[in-house]
């Protein structure tokens, strides 16, 4: 959906700076599209890891959904190491304060989580586009970016699906600059420079 841009860190074959982890049943196409967008828009080379079951202990019976904060905590434990990690799930997720969330992340941390439970649209293309945008947004938080106030930036606070749909799949100049700077830093650290 987005033409690739040459944002990849320089050097030999780029090593993965992010791992995509399908949690529960997730179509391969979903993870592939997200991985391609992380690479194209953020310069984040990403590997798709094998499926893992959702962590049952993070399910909140009363709310019939997974607790995103606890789920991220368990994912971080299960996936140690410096590589960033993005969990994708088709189950509904919420937090102690919010009835539901589309994604959750550790600001300036390592792990993010995105659910496409509420992203389903009429056509598969729109669903994939929403999934890619929310994933890019949450990984922006993982890289330390807060919400942006530029009107059409992917890092603006996504209040509802309409806002997600009207936002183009791109970051504003300031956020893009910051993302690329931090990805370059990550790459240097990964190479042990």
């Amino acid at each position, binding site marked *: 959906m987005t033409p690739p841009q040459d944002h990849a860190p320089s050097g030999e074959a780029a090593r993965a700076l992010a791992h995509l982890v399908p949690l529960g049943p997730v179509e391969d196409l979903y993870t592939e599209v997200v991985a391609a967008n992380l690479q194209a828009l953020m310069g984040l080379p990403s590997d798709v890891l094998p499926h893992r079951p959702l962590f049952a202990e993070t399910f909140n019976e009363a709310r019939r959904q997974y607790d995103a*904060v606890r789920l991220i905590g368990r994912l971080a434990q299960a996936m140690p190491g410096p590589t960033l990690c993005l969990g994708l799930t088709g189950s509904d997720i919420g937090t102690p*304060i919010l009835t539901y969330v589309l994604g959750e992340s550790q*600001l300036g941390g390592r792990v993010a989580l995105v659910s496409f439970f509420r992203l389903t649209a009429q056509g598969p293309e729109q669903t994939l586009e929403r999934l890619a945008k929310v994933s890019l947004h949450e990984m922006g938080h993982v890289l330390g970016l807060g919400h*942006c106030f530029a009107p059409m930036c992917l890092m603006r606070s996504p*209040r509802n699906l309409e806002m997600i749909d009207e936002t183009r799949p791109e970051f504003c100049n300031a956020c893009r600059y910051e993302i690329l700077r931090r990805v370059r830093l990550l790459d240097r650290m990964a190479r042990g420079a």
Partner: protein
Amino acid sequence: MTPTGLNTLVVDDEEGIRESLAAWLTKDGYRVATADSGEAALQCIARQIYDLYLVDIKMPGMDGIELLGRIKERQPDALVIVITAHGTVQTAVEAMKKGASDYICKPFDPEELSLIMERLAATKALRDENTALRQQLMERRDLNLEGIVAQSEAMRAIFATIEDVAPTAAPVLICGESGVGKELVAQAVHYASDRAHGPFIALNCGAQSETLLESELFGHEKGAFTGAVQARRGRLEMAGGGTLFLDEIGDIAPKMQVSLLRVLEEKKFQRVGGNQWIETDFRLVSATHRDLPQLIREGRFREDFFYRINVIRIHLPPLRDRLEDVPALADHFIGRYARETGKRILGLTQRALGMLTAYRWPGNVRELRNVIERAVVLARGQMIGAEELSFVEAGADACRLGTLTLQEMEISHLRGALETCGWNVSRAARQLDIDRGTLTRKMKRYGLQRP
């Protein structure tokens, strides 16, 4: 990437709620602190005031309603959102009666929370703007944009410069003697810029001790020094989105120049006694009557700071170098003070005008304004005469004669006569004892036109 930057305190006994809310707010650009009880919250508030409080109602010990009351006692304008998992209309009514800004039940719908926070941020912005505007009104009682009255070529060139530079973000340095109207020019730059809707915050650096100036500029946290009984926002913070005007910048100490240079470079600073970075976005307009290059040579002004503030320089000439502005300025001030005193004053007599245009005005426009104010108060008739100007320095009548050419003297005299007669050419010709045709020819030759 502009954060709302509101200082926020989240008070909830449940760690999950507290941390989730803090994380959500941090991503939205709020500066967040947390407290796990009403008592812990009061300790936080004793150290620092916050713009916004999110308070859980049901907590062991001091509950949210009591804490709300304690916050409002201390900080009546605080924005407080009350949170409960046990929402009842009665609790909501009680919270709102005690001054809560809003009331939400957890868990919240994400869209609802975003809307509430946006509304509160807008309320806060409006309040801040209101405070800044009130301050501007106080500061502009005697100075407003209409006060820039000028006909001279020098001032017209300055107006053109203001129009050119105002839309840019470049720092402006205004130089000129005391009383020439540097603050008016700074305001003109502000109001002609894209920041016109933001605040215009002025500070006279020459009138402050170094410590006081630091606190005025950077603000301070409660307890930062003796007498800092509560936290206070500084001018750097207040000028966000607008213009900061620092008058007498040549008077500030080199240490403060370093601090200011850092703010200009990094666009962020810390309050005195604080450890949180506050982002700010203002345009700096500074002014001085001093010779800054000379101060640099003497080692009293930093060269790097000078180059940072001196991107665009506007030099305001002293009034003695643009005496052709005196009649228009005098008329302007007569109009203003006549309105204020309720007197019917038509203008200056020919002799009075001659005295004003012959004087060297060491105190510049400010002195002229004071002279006219006193003359209007003293005036008994409808015209201000030489007798009302007797306080203008002795010898004023004569002091300028040696500096003017005969032609300049003639222009000044013709203009004075025309202005006295309200630009009625026939009446002015009669007063000058020349015929109307002669006066018309002279007006054409010297480019004298009704303003």
